[in-house]
């Protein structure tokens, strides 16, 4: 049987094929990626869309968690200062209620308690990065002096709370409005202090005693409210751990989808180099072969 005498197309195709394999292997080694365009692996490319979005979100949630954590810690430490002010007010009130104080003394104590009230209001107006921690969702300064108010201060914020996303379906409450913590109708912290001031100024021991008890119960009320921040903090901490794991999971998923195993890629490259050399060597041997090489030139 006659065979195709023209082996050039076949040789060219072989060389081209081995060149393609070489280029692919080289690209995989140099980029570390198996998939650089959708047709390389349509399924992996599609799955990467979701992976990329989740990775971006997880990065942002991690940042959110740290922002939230610092807000919560600031709020908690503000409340802790408030508690120590109140504790101080209780001891001053107890001292004022013992009936052994001169009017001048009581006035001095009243001034001290008034100072504590100012300090508590200062804590209630704490702001972080321009937003008030206890103003609800309002951007107005929560408490401003108001002589017409019984406490001497009026609340300008609102009763709303913000929740910040720290996961696809996880959000954490980051604030308590001042109207709930400091000027609640049933447990008004500011009013308890200002009542104590009034009682001290009036000098009535019974009133001072009652007002001091009210401040004590305000301390335990603040303590209850701090639980909200405590649980938010532990929620954020737990979420941070989850986000760290999720980052690792997503990165490993990404590597599985479009990454290339370096050892395999290196072996493939070296295999492709060998194949390419073999194809070239074969071409070099076969191409110049012809009967003419073996015929002596006509004399």
């Amino acid at each position, binding site marked *: *049987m*006659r*065979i*195709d*005498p*023209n082996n050039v*197309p*076949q040789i060219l*195709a072989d060389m081209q094929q081995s060149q393609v394999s070489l280029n692919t292997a080289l690209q995989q080694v140099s980029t570390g990626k198996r998939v*650089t*365009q*959708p*047709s*390389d*692996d*349509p*399924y992996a*490319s*599609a*799955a*990467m*869309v*979701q992976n*990329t*979005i989740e*990775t*971006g*979100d997880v*990065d*942002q*949630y991690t*940042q*959110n968690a740290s*922002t*939230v954590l610092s807000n919560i810690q600031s709020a908690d430490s503000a409340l802790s200062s408030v508690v120590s002010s109140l504790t101080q007010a209780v001891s001053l009130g107890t001292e004022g209620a013992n009936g052994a104080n001169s009017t001048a003394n009581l006035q001095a104590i009243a001034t001290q308690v008034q100072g504590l009230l100012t300090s508590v209001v200062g804590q209630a107006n704490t702001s972080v*990065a*321009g*937003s*008030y921690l206890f*103003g*609800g*969702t*309002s*951007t107005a300064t929560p408490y401003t002096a108001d002589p017409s108010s019984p406490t001497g201060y009026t609340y300008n914020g*609102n009763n*709303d709370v*913000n*929740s*910040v*996303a720290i996961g*696809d379906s996880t*959000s954490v409450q980051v604030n308590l409005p001042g109207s709930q913590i400091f000027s609640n109708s049933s447990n008004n912290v500011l009013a308890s202090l200002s009542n104590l001031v009034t009682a001290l100024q009036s000098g009535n021991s019974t009133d001072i005693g009652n007002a001091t008890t009210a401040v004590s119960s305000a301390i335990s009320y603040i303590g209850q409210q701090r639980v909200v921040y405590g649980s938010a903090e532990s929620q954020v901490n737990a979420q941070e751990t989850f986000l760290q794991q999720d980052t690792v999971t997503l990165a490993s998923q990404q590597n599985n989808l479009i990454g290339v195993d370096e050892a395999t890629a290196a072996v493939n490259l070296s295999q492709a180099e060998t194949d390419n050399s073999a194809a070239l060597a074969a071409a070099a041997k076969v191409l110049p072969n*012809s*009967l*003419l090489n073996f*015929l002596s030139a006509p004399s």
Partner: protein
Amino acid sequence: MGGLNTSLLIGMQALDASQGALDATSNNIANANTAGYTREVPQFSENEENLSGGVVTGGGVTLDGLQSVRDELLNLQIQQQTSLQSGADTESTSLQQIQSFFSASSGNDISTQLTAFSSSLAQLSATPTSTSAQQSVLSSGQDLANAFNSTASGLASAQSDADGQVTQTVAQINTLTQQIAQLNGQVSQLTSAGQDGGTTEDQRDELVQQLSALTGVSITQSSDGETITTGNGTPLVVGSQSFSLQTTTGSNGFQQVLDSNGNNITSSIQGGQLGGAIQVRDTTIPGFMSSLNTLATQFATSFNAAQAKGFDSNGNAGQAFFSVPANSANAAAGISVALTNPSQIAISSDGSSGSNGNVANLSAALTNDLPSGDTPANAYANLVFQVGSAASNASTQSTAIGQNLQQLQTQQGSVSAVSVDEETTNLLRYQTAYDAAARIVNTIQQLNTVTLDLGSSESF
């Protein structure tokens, strides 16, 4: 019994025959690398024997002609496979161009911008009053709209490239069919005169080969040469007559292919560059475009609905974030951000400027199912999968047909291709034959001299 002259005549015929065979060999060697050339072999036949005085002697040799060695069936198979491959190649080239717009490495694709948009919303959740966080949502929203626009324009430009290819290819087809019809006439004249088609047939087959790369054709042999039609039977060449295809702008703004009677045959054209370009232009790209438009419309609607649930930084009800053209066919190309100021983002759920209550709704618009049943990310991922697998299929198909084609060409080569080694051998063979024939003439000449000089004293 013949005389010396008979021998001389036989020698001369042998010289002529060898001369013709040497011509064939040298022509084969000369055309060893000519595309479409089919090797020719000399056809010798014995002459009628001479009967003289009861003795029969041979009558020498005649060169009947040169015969091209070709296999028509293989040619047909090669033409079919060429059509298929060239169609797959055309689709593959176009899809390679298209898929770059869906590749995440471009950095300006919808997936990357969707990620940035989603992150910017998550950031806004933590810092709702930060102007830079608001600005970042607005600009990443604009980037996302731009990514939709550029993907849509990428598809549209690939579609218009394919449309341009239709016009060009039809023009090339018409040029080729005219040439083929002319050669077809010449070949049928030769064959009806009992001669081999030879190089004319080679040329015609080569042109038919080129034609089949342009569009799928069906070829039948008839008494007046080949009849070439498109796959659905529209005649292109019948005998020595060619029928031109025409193009005209259709209602969709693209070039439609008409047969010589003005019938629209666009949808029935398959294979070849023309079939591939029409497939990409009328089926593949519109499919992607429609998915993209659906996604753009549904995403914008869903995000605008989330925006409407809240209040902007000035306490006004949220207005539409994205604006999409009313005609959904232009949704992806025309989607844009309607807001002009970051303060218009509906962050607040209660109207106060510090609230982030509506951000959760905005973020949810990115993760909730659209009316299509998929989240925006999944709907886009489906599209990426479709584009990727179409590109991968077209290139796999092209490779597979390519291998098949190469095998057929090897078979054809084994029948028709010129082997230089074989021709070198033939050269030696015919050289020897020519030498020997020349020796006959020389010998007869000497014998004639001897005969004429009989009795001459000067001889010997």
